[in-house]
């Protein structure tokens, strides 16, 4: 259980800012809505508010989970090493002349 975050309210994405880019790529009004949900989910009073709206709570949780589990150390603890997958792809493409 050591790899599991106690809460998703901490740093959502400490490496590379992928979650920020993901949220920024969303069209309005989703972008604003996502930022509000994330802000609420990270605060105790906000989280309590979200608990009364299960759909909003699940949406907030999904966004934060996307960022949290993208963190390399956590992903590696679960058996997924994105850097290694990308590096293997690069090597294979160069070795075999793939595009």
């Amino acid at each position, binding site marked *: 259980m050591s790899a599991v975050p106690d809460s998703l309210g901490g740093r959502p994405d400490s490496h590379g800012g992928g979650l920020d880019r*993901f949220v920024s790529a969303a*069209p309005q009004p989703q972008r604003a809505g996502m930022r509000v949900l994330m802000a609420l989910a990270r605060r105790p009073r906000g989280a309590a508010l979200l608990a009364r709206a299960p759909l909003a709570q699940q949406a907030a949780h999904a966004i934060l989970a996307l960022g949290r589990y993208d963190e390399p150390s956590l992903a590696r603890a679960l058996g997924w090493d994105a850097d290694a997958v990308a590096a293997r*792809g690069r090597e294979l493409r160069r070795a075999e002349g793939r595009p």
Partner: protein
Amino acid sequence: MTEILDADVCVIGAGAGGAVVAAELAEGGARVVVLEQGPSHDADDFSARPPEMLARLYRDGGQTTTLGTPPILLPLGRGVGGTTLVNSGTCFRTPPRVLERWAGEFGLELDEATLAPCFERVERSLSVAEVTPELAGANAAVARRGAERLGWSHGYLRRNARGCVGSGVCVFGCPTSAKQHTGITYIPRATAAGARIVTGADVRELIVTAGEARGARARLAGGGTLEVRAPSVVVACGTIHTPLLLARNRLGAGSGQLGLNLALHPATAGFALMEETVNMARGVPQSFYVDEFADEGVMFEGVAGPPAYAAMSLPLTGERHARAMADYPRLAQFGLMVSDSSRGRVSSLAGRPVIRYSLGEQDVAKFRLGLARLHELFVAAGAREVYLPLPAGVEPRRARVRDLKLMAFHPLGTARADARAAHGVVDGDLALHDVSGVYVADGSVVPSALGVNPQLTIMALATRLAFRLLGRALPRHNDNEEIACPS
């Protein structure tokens, strides 16, 4: 400042339809210019990290959403390759029962024999082959075990991949370039044959004079305007954006069908906690299908991904979510897709698409059936726990429309083909009914849900269109001959 290019054919969009038309026309000797709104992607930038890749490779970061009940997430690819860049690579020919329906209901002369040479040519171009059990991975093995124990019809999927090593991130940009998307197959062929590909070209205007196509004008990302003068224009912007471009130019509206008839193949997925290690992202995520209930409109297909992807889609919250994710290596996932009879529509608000779609009761019933069967499949496979995408305490048979968490990947039908001008936007040859020289080659012409992944259907129809424009029959090939892609 306006740059002007002359061509025989101007193709708008470099996805499943546009890239195919462009390559076949260019190789046939036509002067072709392709205008693609998005960028060209470099596989060196594919990081295998879901949030970053969603932002980079998808329109709106993959967060395009329908308005209706329930809201449905509709991720669309962006750039050279279009959605073929980010799909799972599954290849099905159009089911014969669908072609029969098209003949009867829409007057389309597209039987199996007519389309077979087109499918064969596309399949050779994309190296389509069945996934091996070894490459399919343990996630597929879970579904296979369940289906075998239940006696359900199943099989390994055919995919457009070459030299796949099972990186597990097809939908986040294939890092090995094994997936043969149109950006690395048809577009290089088009370029080698002399076609010009212009990226960052946002087409605003289709030039039509006295009822005849004359070309297209685009705003360029770097500034300025490009005008392509051509007597034939092929619109291939995809099911969501093609009707908007046509409507903006007051084209295709004669039948009143433009933007209507949107089918989506709405989909969802469940998870199971297994006894064995699955490591769902090792292997081909979509490698296996169960079609036992296809006649009832429900198709099961594999789906899987890295922890970030799984964490986002796992239908749990709080401590239960954390506990399940701690067991990520033992999580299995499988999806189901509904051949929908519900229909939506696409319109424009301030230049952006507004997609309206509400799931009808018939399709809700298909999801009830599908979710119940998915639970059964996982249990038969030996699942310790099953996590279905339903609110706590809601059983599949009691699910209401607002209980469903849906995504969709196959928008179709918004410029549907119909032999009769009063009923369709394009005719059986994919030409607009109300103007000469404008054609459509993307999912928007597909007049009904297919029940299977549509990329091969779109590509086969595009192949047929290209050879019709060239005025030639398709060349015959030896059975084992592949169509080479320039590197």
